[in-house]
Structure formats: C-alpha cells, structure tokens
C-alpha cells in the first residue's frame, strides 16, 4: 500500500511515495536518494565524503526515514492528516559551519527574480542585513 506525501526539505517541497507498513515513514531507496541528495551505499547513508552506518534504517530496498532522521539528528515533523513531512537540518551541522566562521553560501532572488549567491561577491566586503515588513 502506498501513499502520496509531500516532503519539505531544504526549502523545497516535493511529492514522495510512502510505501510499506502503515506505521512507518518508508521510502524506496530511489525516492530517498532523489529527495534528499544522500546516497545509500554498503557503508550506509553517504553525502560527499561522509558516510553514516545505516543499521536498521535500510532494509529490503527501503529506507525508514524516521530512523535516518534519528541517525543524522535531523528534526522530522510528520503531519499524517495533511500527508506532509518536514525534514530540517541538524543543529550540529549549523553550529559546525558557523563556528568555522566561513560564511555559509546561499542563493536567493531579488525583486526581479534574478538569483544572487553570496559567493558571487567573494573578494568584496559584505554587510548582510536582514529585515522584514513585520
């Protein structure tokens, strides 16, 4: 039995198919890899140079997303009624990056929709100022 859910991760929402048991949040490995940008290898969950042993989070070609989230210390919010899951970033990832004092890169649009990356401005001094209409 499968259900269509929406997975919100990295500021993007995409449809994912949940498979298998009624109580778990299980995805096929393909769905998991496409949605998260992590790959599943014999070493475990891998991204770039880093691999984390998957243990029981991977079995029979499926990924238990909740188990993955626990292993990677990523917050995962599930709303069954709305068929939506939000997967956030681990605090340690944010803290490590900020502690390095390397300004995290990002890409955002201006009013005309043109994209700007922080790294576009490398070589200049930057004042990053956040404000809001609220």
């Amino acid at each position, binding site marked *: 039995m499968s259900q269509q859910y929406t997975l*919100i991760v990295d500021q993007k*929402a995409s449809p994912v198919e949940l498979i298998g048991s009624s109580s778990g949040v299980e995805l096929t490995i393909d769905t998991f890899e496409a949605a998260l940008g992590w790959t599943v290898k014999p070493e475990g969950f891998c991204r770039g140079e880093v691999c984390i042993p998957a243990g029981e989070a991977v079995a029979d070609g499926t990924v238990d997303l909740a188990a993955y989230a626990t292993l990677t210390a990523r*917050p995962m919010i599930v709303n069954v009624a709305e068929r939506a899951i939000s997967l*956030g970033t681990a605090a340690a990832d944010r803290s490590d990056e*900020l502690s390095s*004092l390397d300004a*995290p890169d*990002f890409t955002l649009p201006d009013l005309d929709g043109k994209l700007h990356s922080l790294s576009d401005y490398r070589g200049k001094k930057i004042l990053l100022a956040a404000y809001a209409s609220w």
Partner: protein
Amino acid sequence: MALDKNADDVRPWIEAAGPTHPSLIDTKHLVADLYNMVNVPTILWIDEDGRIVRPNDVAYGNNQWQEMHGFDAEVHKRALRTWVHGTAPAPFTSERARQLQQLPNAEHQEARAEFALGQWLWEQGRMEAAEAHFVRAGELAPQDFTIRRGSMPMRDIDPMGEEFFAMVGAWAEAGNEYYHPLPEA
C-alpha cells in the same frame, strides 16, 4: 535581505529605497536558518575571503524608530565605514568572533522544521493545519522572533498589533531580551 513570505510584501520598501546594492527576498527563511538569526534587524559582516568577521548583531539603517528600540544607527554606520574603507581592521579576533556567535540547539532546529511545514501548509491554503505548526515552532524556540513574529502575517495576526505587544511584554516580563546586540563594539 527581507525575511518576508513573498516579494510583494516587501516590494514597496525596496522600490522606495531604490538601493544600489542587491536586495534579496528570503521567503523560506533560508538565511535565518543558515546564520541562526532570531530577529530583525540582524546584521553581520563578511570579509573578502568569505569569513564572518562580525557575527549577528543588531543595527538599524536610520534613527526613525530610535525612541522605541534605543539603537543609534550612526554608531554602526561609523564602524562599518571605517572597516570598509580599510581604516580599521576586523572588529574581533577569530576567537572572539567565534565566542560571540550564538549557535542553534536541537529544539531550535526542530522549531525551524515546524515553521517550514507551517509555511508550506499556509501556501496550500490550509490555515488551520498551519496554525498548529506555527504555534509549536514558537514553543520550541520562544527566543526566535523570525518565527514568532514572522509567522504572524501567515496567521492573520497583525505583527504590529496587540497580540504582538502582549507577546513581547510577556517575554520581557520573564526577564528576556527582545534584541541581542553584541556586548561590545
């Protein structure tokens, strides 16, 4: 960089200001998350090598509301000019800059994940469902006003109205600060 839910909300201000610098729209609070911002205005300085030399601080662009918040915009502007023109080095050693950073904990990241779900539900027009997530986000990170105030426009609450002032009043009465300027220049 505007932490606004859509470009239209902030368009009048950007057009009125006519800035010569890039003015970006961060509808999903990506940068607030990356840099662990908890309120606006938040400023930080990044040098030519992409290094944070002044971590999250509070500075306004002018003194229009100085009576309300107490910050003198000229202090930051002076410091900024001397740094930009090269007549002053970076304000802090790397070690001190690191110490001055506020780093997020697991609850705060959970709050951000709740906020993201709330925002997506709001975008789908599912207001009631969104509300539960915005409320939960505020409980998990009560110090984060990019969440507690930033969600108000999506909850049909006036971010300049009574409920906002009651929220800040309760926060202050409990001994908390609404703004977190750096303790030193």
